[in-house]
């Protein structure tokens, strides 16, 4: 029982990270129609800058806002400089241009921070665990990540459904041309959306940095899962990103946790682990293939 609850929490924590990334990506894709492979690079930049500043200043709480600010700035620069030119282009050009950006950003990180992964230090209040149920001391930090993720989800809900900007975002995701025809400064809207996406990606990176290894290429590891979440959730839908993100996070974690043990019942331990791990990794892609074949637009597609 304790084991299942613990693994569910782990899945929730991973799912929340996926949501933070997918929310931004789905808005960018939905509203601007751009496939941005380099979204993972923003996650990486957030992790690197946040961690480095935290190390230099000695405080995670200084690293956090600085990391967010820098990532948002990089996002704006990216949009104004490169992404803007891709709105009118076809998907192939978008894919290749943003792939090129991945190469550039990865190497830029090496130039600035070197090849070795950065060490992260958690603030004191986070370095222990809290007994959330008898026999289950769960790491405080992971609970923090879950809470932050849920709060952001709530915040985004309010932003998108209860504010004017949010209304424009929803309109843009539903029908871009119409919004433009209605006289909205679409260029400004795009930049704001992109910056928001970058901010969320950076937050995901900073939150993840004490747990995963802060190293070059960490963006690629998670960008595919993020795309899967976006496609399953429905392009342009933050609600879809939330539900699909949590769903995928939990399914992926539970598969990884329990499939190898099931297989170990009739296979040698090392083989069982390899097969279990491989099939678990395939899990989210199988899900996506299934969803695409049944509901090609995803679960909660926004557009007409």
């Amino acid at each position, binding site marked *: 029982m304790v*084991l299942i609850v613990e693994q569910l929490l782990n899945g929730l924590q991973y799912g929340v990270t996926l949501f933070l990334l997918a929310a931004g990506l789905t808005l960018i894709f939905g509203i601007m129609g751009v496939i941005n492979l380099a979204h993972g690079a923003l996650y990486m930049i957030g992790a690197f800058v946040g961690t480095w500043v935290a190390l230099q200043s000695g405080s995670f709480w200084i690293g956090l806002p600085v990391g967010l600010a820098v990532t948002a700035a990089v996002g704006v620069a990216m949009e104004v400089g490169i992404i803007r030119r891709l709105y009118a282009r076809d998907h192939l050009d978008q894919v290749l241009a943003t792939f090129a950006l991945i190469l550039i950003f990865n190497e830029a990180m090496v130039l600035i921070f070197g090849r070795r992964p950065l060490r992260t230090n958690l603030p004191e209040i986070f370095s222990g665990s809290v007994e959330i149920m008898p026999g289950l*001391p769960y790491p405080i930090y992971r609970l923090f990540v879950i809470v932050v993720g849920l709060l952001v989800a709530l915040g985004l809900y309010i932003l998108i459904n209860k504010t004017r900007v949010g209304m424009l975002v929803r309109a843009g995701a539903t029908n871009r041309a119409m919004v433009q025809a209605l006289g909205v400064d679409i260029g400004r809207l795009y930049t704001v959306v992109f910056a928001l996406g970058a901010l969320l990606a950076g937050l995901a990176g900073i939150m993840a940095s004490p*747990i995963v*290894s802060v*190293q070059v290429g960490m963006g690629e590891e998670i960008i595919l899962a993020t795309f899967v979440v976006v496609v399953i959730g429905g392009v342009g839908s933050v609600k879809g990103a939330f539900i699909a993100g949590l769903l995928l996070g939990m399914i992926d974690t539970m598969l990884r946790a329990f499939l190898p043990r099931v297989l170990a019942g009739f296979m040698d*331990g090392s083989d069982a682990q390899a097969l279990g*791990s491989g099939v678990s990794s395939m899990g989210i892609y199988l899900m996506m293939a299934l969803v695409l074949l049944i509901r090609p637009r995803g679960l909660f597609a926004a557009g007409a």
Partner: protein
Amino acid sequence: MKHLLTTASLMAVMAAPAWAETAKIGVITTLSGPAGYLGEQIRDGLKLGLSASGADTELVIEDDARDPNTGLQIADRMLNEEGIKLLTGIVFSNVAGTVVPETLDNGGIYVSPNAAPSNLAGAKCHPNYFVVSWQNDSLHEASGVAAKELGYKTAVALAPNYQAGQDAIAGFEREFGGEVTQIYTAVDQSDFAGEMAQIRDANPDVVFQFHPGGQGIGFLKQYQQAGLLGKIPMALSEPSIDTVILKAVGDAAIGITGTTHWNDDFDNDASKAMVAAWAAEYPDRPLTTYAQQAYDTGLLIGSALKKTDGKTDDVEALAAAIKEADFTSTRGLFSFGQNQHPVQEWFMTEIVAGPDGGPKIETKKKIREQVGDVYAADCKM
């Protein structure tokens, strides 16, 4: 008169000190990624050891990025395009899995400062393949011995799912003798939340885990964060608690039991000379067993090169010279077994609070007399 002059000059030339050639040695090691510091330790330890032996060598150093294919392509180039006959340096067993056969196929010699997978230690042993560190299994058998001596009966053993990881769990299990639950992690895994949950669920007497490099740091930190550190003791082999990991983890490591074949508090002259040389050359960097193993490798290769006048073309002669192991090891007692892997002693250590406040590895007692590995008997050389 002319005759006399010619003879005299000939004798003069022969009497002059033999000008040793500069021997070219290929060093393929892991310099990038989270385990990059292991390669750096090996590279620098090798250099110090070679200079301590007095040999004149030219090192061709390349990064294998922990990828067996990259290592293979580099070895192919070194052996076939650059004419290098002696290779060394590999950190990881999966890279060794391709580079060693390639080297042997092309008539070269490989001397391992670290990786020594089980599949190359038994029937597949080869006269041109030498290991200076330890055989993979025996490195972890020591931890099994330690855990047994401390009275533990049940254990959870974790390691990444590659050759060295499998060797680790096999070695630990072999000597531990109690009930072992095996858990394999992914080779590039950095988030161990799932494994922490499984350990908690299994509730063993002791945990054994083999996660070298950056993975080791992550594992120990998360073990502490999960509230397991005070609850379930650990018995680790040296790669999981090397001095770099120790520095990054800090006080969280105090109390952990370790095992090793060498520690910086050893009393013999060779070890003290190495510790001093390292401190002089790299005062800001800790000295790990990786560097020590590479240092011994340097001493070994240097001693062999002296016997062949610095030449590496006669591979048979060089291999014979290496086999003699005519050097004084920093670990005290050292000799080659039947499969040209080491026969050595093993010690139990404990992480204690050091004099400067930080944690320190302290040697407690010897737990194994001179012993080789279980695969030597299968080697029919």
